[in-house]
């Protein structure tokens, strides 16, 4: 006991370990991942900082309820594979979550160490364990429950859909994923850039699901090639809709359809999914601006700004109508963007765009804002300052202010209730929609959110779907 305590004390003195990463001046010239990750030594050192609390708060901070102290203890003991397996008990995509989760708002936010010192680097440790397992080539295929004879269709292969598929295949159901794009992974492949989430990692997670027996059909647009009702007629017993982001939002200001003005979805899809950064080796082109403006200040804005730098921009500005404290991006992403030379123009919003005779954007008129009283989001409302208009030159604009709902599937699915913004209405607890046998989760329910929240929604829906399939329930909800 005395020894335990002593060890605990010693642990506290070690500072939070940083990951080695590419230098800013190098990395803006390539699309390779920025951090290199922990070495085994660094990982064990960091794992040693964990107090192994009797009543850990970090677990409650995790939307998929990972046993955080347990996996960290295994890393500390040097059982890295064991740590990866522990993670996978609750999270089928640890290599992804370790990279893109907003840990500072979840597990790390409630870490006791963080009260006096910096919290344990849970995300970096998660990433280390998952990467270790993959690098060893020792991906364990867990035993599945005996076949139930039930069939599940999952529309969309983003984080929500992949979680549902992973959970339900292990419970003995037959699972088919239908993906509208030609490649599986949803936002993980079309949205998040290679330098933040290497596509080989996403592919490894999808290969793992395929090894588990999940059938994957890409290039299959549910709602068009088959409706939800037709899937039921074909013998599927339950259906999960994880359709993801829909129509990109624009600002509805003059000149918005000039060439060189992209939605972040288009800009990132061209670069990430279609590999336009490798043009002309890959056929899809992308406009390479020298003087770029990105609107919005979430993670997607940071990804767009940093992509623009890597595509050869001289100047990239984030233009945001509120102030720094309201920026929704992760601190780490803002930090990386700043290190790379992205400029921040806060309390500024565009009023109109100007273009040349060929219809290409050449500049924009902006207006300064001040913050008023908090609005319904709890953030202070930006108010335009009269007479503060000024103009800025730019030859490329990326609008990253979120996405609306995709009308494609809802309009072909009778019985599916939508809210007034067009998102699918689903129970907050279990993801049940208003249509019998149909669940939904992720951005198509909540609007633009995070990978881990979509995974959490997938987890809850999968549990509810399993109960429904096994109970022979005939009533709804």
């Amino acid at each position, binding site marked *: 006991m005395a020894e335990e305590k002593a060890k605990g004390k010693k642990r506290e003195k070690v500072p939070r370990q940083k990951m080695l990463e590419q230098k800013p001046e190098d990395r803006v010239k390539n699309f390779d991942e920025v951090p290199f990750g922990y070495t085994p030594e660094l990982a064990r050192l960091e794992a040693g900082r964990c107090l192994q609390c009797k009543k850990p708060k970090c677990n409650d901070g995790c939307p998929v309820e990972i046993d955080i102290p347990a996996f960290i203890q295994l890393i500390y003991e040097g059982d890295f594979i064991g740590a990866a397996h522990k993670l996978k008990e609750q999270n089928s995509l640890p290599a992804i979550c370790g990279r893109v989760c907003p840990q500072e708002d979840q597990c790390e936010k409630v870490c006791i160490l963080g009260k006096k010192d910096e919290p344990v680097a849970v995300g970096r440790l998660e990433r280390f364990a998952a990467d270790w397992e993959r690098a060893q080539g020792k991906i364990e295929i867990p035993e599945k429950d005996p076949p139930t004879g039930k069939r599940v269709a999952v529309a969309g292969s983003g984080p929500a859909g992949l979680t549902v598929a992973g959970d339900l295949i292990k419970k003995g159901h037959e699972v088919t994923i239908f993906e*509208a*794009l*030609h490649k599986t992974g949803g936002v993980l492949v*079309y949205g998040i850039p290679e330098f933040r989430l290497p596509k080989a990692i996403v592919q490894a997670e999808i290969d793992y699901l395929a090894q588990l027996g999940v059938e994957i059909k*890409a*290039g*299959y*647009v549910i709602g*068009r*090639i*088959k409706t939800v009702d037709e899937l039921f007629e074909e013998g599927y017993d339950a259906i999960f809709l994880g359709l*993801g*982001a*829909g*129509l*990109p939002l*624009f600002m*509805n200001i003059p000149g*918005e*359809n000039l*060439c*060189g003005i*992209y*939605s972040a*979805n*288009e800009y990132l*899809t*061209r670069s990430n999914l*279609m*590999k336009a950064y490798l*043009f*002309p*080796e*890959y*056929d*899809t*082109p992308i*406009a390479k601006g020298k003087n770029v403006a990105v609107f919005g200040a979430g993670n997607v804005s940071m990804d767009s700004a940093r992509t623009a730098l890597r595509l050869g921009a001289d100047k990239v500005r984030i233009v945001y109508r509120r102030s720094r404290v309201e920026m929704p991006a992760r601190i780490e992403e803002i930090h990386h963007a700043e290190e790379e030379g992205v400029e921040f123009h806060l309390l500024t919003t565009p009023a109109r765009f100007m273009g040349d005779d*060929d*219809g*290409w954007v050449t500049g924009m008129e902006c207006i300064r804002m001040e913050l008023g009283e908090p609005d319904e989001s709890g953030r202070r409302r930006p108010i335009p300052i009269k007479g503060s208009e000024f103009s800025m030159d730019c030859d490329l604009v990326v609008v990253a202010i979120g*996405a609306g709902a*995709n*009308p*494609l599937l809802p309009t072909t699915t009778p019985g599916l209730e939508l809210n007034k913004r067009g998102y699918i209405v689903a129970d907050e607890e279990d993801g049940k929609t208003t249509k019998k046998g149909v669940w939904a989760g992720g951005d198509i329910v909540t609007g633009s959110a995070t990978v881990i929240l979509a995974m959490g929604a997938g987890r809850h829906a999968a549990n509810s779907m399993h109960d429904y399939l096994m109970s022979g329930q005939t009533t709804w909800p």
Partner: protein
Amino acid sequence: MFRILEKREMAERTVCEFKIEVPDIAKKAQPGQFVVIRANETGERIPLTMAGTDPEAGTINIIFQVVGKTTALLRSLGEGDEIVDIIGPLGVPTHVEKLGTVICVGGGTGVAVMYPITKAYKEAGNHVIAIVGARTKDLLILEEEMKAASHDLRVTTDDGSYGHHGFVTDVLKQILDGGDDVKLVVGIGPVPMMKFLCKMTKEYDVKTVVSLNPIMVDATGMCGACRVSVGGRTRFCCVEGPEFDGHQVDFDELVKRQRAYLTEEKVSMDRFTEQVPE
């Protein structure tokens, strides 16, 4: 992978038709819809017209004009070759109902889009007058098919080498002046043709539908590459179109957006021609 079963070249090898085995799409596709094709692993996604389907045989026919690298690459394929991705059917199907007299105007490769739509209007019990045009006789496509799909087919060529010497809009004007009670004009073709056609039918106050072909990437309502201004509002052609009220469309903006990547398209095409000398 989807196998090309038949290949037909038209319009002096500037236009090509494939019959491809895609049973799921063949079963579902309706007039007015399109597919997205990715020719190979490094390919781009481009929307292409379905000029017909055979649900029993499980085949679709696509027709494309060779305008750049991807279409040149497609034309280089032959019977038995495979295409990596064909995704669809996409877009809102044509709303076909019995109206009375309907004029279907197709220009250039637009005739391919127009063909199944024309057929559908005829089958719905309308009196269908079709007008098809091309720059010159040898570039005319689907004349026989359009003849069978309509009650009355008029042909125009810009150079007078066949049919009426002039534009499709000349013949359309004659018909509209003739006093027939025309309920609807459907116009599909190059943007300038659609623009002038809509200007004319607006003067006659005849409802006009056009099918637009902006650049698309995902084509499932996610990226917004295909946005077009209709009635002053931004619309997404891939999920809200491709058909819109022609009198509301900002054609000048559409043409500029279609030309956004001319430089890159040339780079790709030059690279392709070097690799595959014809």
